[in-house]
């Protein structure tokens, strides 16, 4: 930006070189808008800025409206039945995609969603019960889980042992509902593989 104080004095510049008539006019802000630190420039920028802001704001509104604030989905916390409805071993709660296990008076709940890409794993009886060492402990495996999509397999405690699954099946928190004694699964809360609900 050139200095404004040169005014009508068109004979001298900071470098001492005389100005041509054109340059002199520019100096005075007559020829070029650019030389004018002007209201015009300010308003132009204000206009462009306001336009961008308006477009940005409305784009945000458009996209934000597509992120739901209320979900009309099944609740993540649900009842699966009273204790006496569960026999020894595993029961598949089909519409909730979870397995509920009972071992005498302890319960635990394992998700049926494969940790690879979310297909529903199938529980298979093992032909001959095998003893496997998982996480430093020997377990007597009667069943295992297998995923139909990409062939991952899990031991009965949910630990993955073959296929592309990167981690064990999720374990969910189990509670007893105080009002009617039903088992309550909370799929929003994952727990340790050793979690057991004792009743």
């Amino acid at each position, binding site marked *: 930006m050139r200095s404004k104080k040169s005014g009508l004095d068109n004979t001298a510049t900071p470098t001492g070189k005389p100005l041509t008539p054109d340059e002199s006019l520019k100096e005075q802000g007559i020829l070029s808008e650019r030389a004018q630190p002007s209201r015009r420039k300010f308003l132009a920028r204000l206009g462009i800025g306001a336009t961008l802001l308006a477009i940005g704001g409305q784009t945000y509104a458009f996209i934000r409206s597509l992120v739901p604030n209320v979900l009309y989905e099944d609740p993540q916390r649900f009842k699966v039945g009273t204790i006496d409805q569960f026999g020894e071993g595993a029961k598949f709660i089909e519409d909730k995609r979870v397995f509920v296990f009972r071992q005498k008076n302890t319960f635990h709940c394992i998700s049926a969603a494969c940790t690879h890409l979310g297909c*529903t794993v199938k529980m298979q009886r093992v032909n001959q019960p095998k003893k496997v060492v998982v996480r430093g402990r020997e377990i007597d495996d009667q069943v295992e889980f297998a995923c139909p999509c990409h062939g991952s397999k899990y031991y009965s405690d949910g630990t993955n042992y073959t296929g592309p699954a990167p981690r064990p099946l999720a374990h969910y928190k189990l509670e007893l509902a105080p009002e009617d004694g039903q088992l309550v699964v909370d799929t929003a809360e994952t727990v340790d593989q050793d979690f057991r609900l004792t009743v």
Partner: protein
Amino acid sequence: MATKRSTWDKIKWTWQPETKREAGDSIVRNFLLHWFPSKVTRQSLSWNYSFWLGTISAVLFLILILTGIPLMFLYVPSVERAYLSVKDLEFTVSYGWFLRGLHRISAHLMVAVVFLHLVRVFLTGAYKNGTAVNQNRPLNWVIGLLLLLLTLLLSFTGYLLPWDQLAYWAITVGTNIASSAPVVGESMRFFLLGGRTIDQNTLIRFYVLHCFFLPLGVLLLFSYHMWRVRKDGGLACVDQLSLEQKKGPVEPIKSKTYSLLGITSGRTVHVETLIVDEDQHTVTASPNLTRRLMAVTLGTVAVAALLTTLFRAPLEEAANPSVTPNPAKAPWYFLWLQELVTDTTFTIGGITINGALIGGIIVPGLLVVAAIAWVYLDKSPPAAVGVWFAKERRKQNIVFLTVVAAILIFTIIGTYLRGPYWNFYWPWQSWPTMPRQF
């Protein structure tokens, strides 16, 4: 020449122009044809240079729009009624099976033909600039890649809509691949699904993407793709003609510039064409180009319609979130990815990386990046432009064909050699019978 032209005169064009003037007029003065040049080289028209694959994909897209419109009237994008409305299409709506079948077959063909078009462009080095000014073929290659990706997204969103088992589990796998992306993955999945589970929000989202946003994207990019072909001086094989001409003792190549003379100064909207010896190499676009265009269109429609009557569109059981079909397979053009996400879970130093991230995001992402970078790094000479298997690009073609072969092999493994629980079975091995429930 008559000065008054009826509306009908403006739409139709002559198939038997008496003079070159009439031939040129029928292109330039016609709205439907104005985007074509009035004269084309014989090479660009030849069947076995381009195999007309770009044209075929455009015709397939046209079929998809035309069949998609009535389907939009008949299909209800609601989780309660989507499956039943597709079933109605198959069994109660007059010719509903044909509309749905033609739409489906055209979609399958479009994926294949767009991919083959890409292969053709690569193997002929047609993404390279020749000698004419203002060419930007690499950009058009990138636009073409985007069109391929849009085609795949259109297929993916399309096969969710019947809300059958295939649809449901494809979308489960697809959106979980999205969620395996680091940091933004989970929120991306939430945004795609419109919630935590695949439900009504998901269906309507994919419906609107499928019927509005993605086709709009294809239309815009397709227009730009065609405009660039004209700006770049037509098909790449034309560059060879001008190159040959340069060698001979003829006068230097002129460049034709049409500009808005007198309206604006400087270089403005213009079309540049390489001038090749017109009498020797070019023919009038009407009827030579238009006739072939019609033949390709009719042929494509005929093949698609015939395939539709031969292969009825399947419809699996209604979507059931608690039972995954065994095996659960994506459509053939995604099976190489399904095979890839199966094989790419790695554990390095105690950290396990999900195959979904490597096979589903990183590898395809790198392929796209490599495909874009490639055309800007290719420094082979102009002699390799628009020539099948140019010897200057032999190594490049070998690398490219290796990748294509790998994709094909993975597709074949996924299609024919994977059985229940994604176990490997040779074609002569029978699959064990599976209980329907666990």
